[in-house]
């Protein structure tokens, strides 16, 4: 049976497209089920911290409800823009799972230009020196 590299590339691309469509479908389902807007977000890992940014235009800083747990962060806030699509409500809601447990006390956050930025210190696991008897 002949085998074309183009067919392989095409299959890969279609698989990728189908994954993207599935992701968008899931987000739309969640939004219509919960009546909330799932905001765009990004979680970046640096050497000593995680930086979570959430794109939430149209929000008042004082209305942002952010709950920090050991393994995840939950953010909720009302959006004060008139949203043309009826599939969403007018409330942002997001739950982000963290790659490792953190100390919730170490978290700092600010809301700037419609973006919520959350800085989370990583738990350091420094070795403990043991004296040899």
């Amino acid at each position, binding site marked *: 049976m002949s085998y074309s590299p183009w067919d392989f590339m095409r299959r890969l*691309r279609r698989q*990728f497209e189908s994954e*993207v469509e599935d*992701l968008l479908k899931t987000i739309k389902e969640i939004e219509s089920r919960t009546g909330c807007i799932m905001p*765009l977000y990004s979680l970046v890992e640096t050497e000593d911290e995680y930086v979570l*940014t959430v*794109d939430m235009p*149209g929000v008042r800083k004082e209305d942002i409800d952010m709950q920090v747990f050991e393994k995840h962060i939950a953010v909720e806030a009302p959006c004060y823009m008139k949203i043309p699509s009826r599939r969403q409500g007018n409330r942002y809601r997001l739950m982000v799972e963290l790659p490792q447990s953190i100390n919730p006390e170490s978290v700092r956050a600010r809301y700037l230009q419609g973006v919520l930025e959350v800085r989370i210190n990583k738990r350091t696991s420094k070795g403990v020196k043991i004296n040899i008897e």
Partner: protein
Amino acid sequence: MSEAYSVFSFHDRLGEKVGKTLVVGFPDTGLAGAISVSYAVEKLEPEEVGYIDSSELPPILPIRRAEPKELIRIYESRNFLTIVSEIPIPPPLIRPFASDLLDWVQKKGVSGVICLTGLAEPKRLELETPAVFVVSSRPRDVEKVAKDLECEVFNEGFITGIHAEILRLGMRRGLEVVILLSQSHLNYPDPGAAAQLLNKLTKLVNEKIDVKPLLESEEMVRLQLRDLMRRTTEAMVQKSREMELPPVYR
């Protein structure tokens, strides 16, 4: 022409030799380029003169103001042509797309190509007004272009994706390709970055585009473009995996 066959077909009502500049801004970093060209088309209301198609494109049909539209459209205004794409060019199709595009550019006698795009800036939140950088297929002219546009020359770094490929082919074929890069969010739609690109573009194409309404509706634009940004981010991630590089950095 470089390719033995074309993956993309160009359908247009343009004359044999156009002689105008082509402005493109495909969805990538912060959608800065895509927002710029879409906004320019909305404001200048140029004539829609054609479209680009391929059997390799996903079966998506955009509806705009109750009107079904082509995925990748060609517009002609007084001083320049514009291509607006509703989807990011899928990474495996970037090379054939750039090649077919420049074949068409040469066939139509287009005088030069201006690419508008974003430059991922990790500290974008701290910036009130993003800076714009310029790079050209004709390095000898770039200082003058930067001076005329009051922007900086992009001196060191990497550009990836569709605009990089257009620049590379332009360089090889002796065509004038200029890329304007505005500091931008990587994964969030960035109308502020798009407005800066438009401010510079107006000088290059001698056309006035008022960016005030774009900046006033910035929050709504960001909210409405979430799906396109998600699609674009996935495409950029796929491209980065192929290249083991961040999508754009300097």
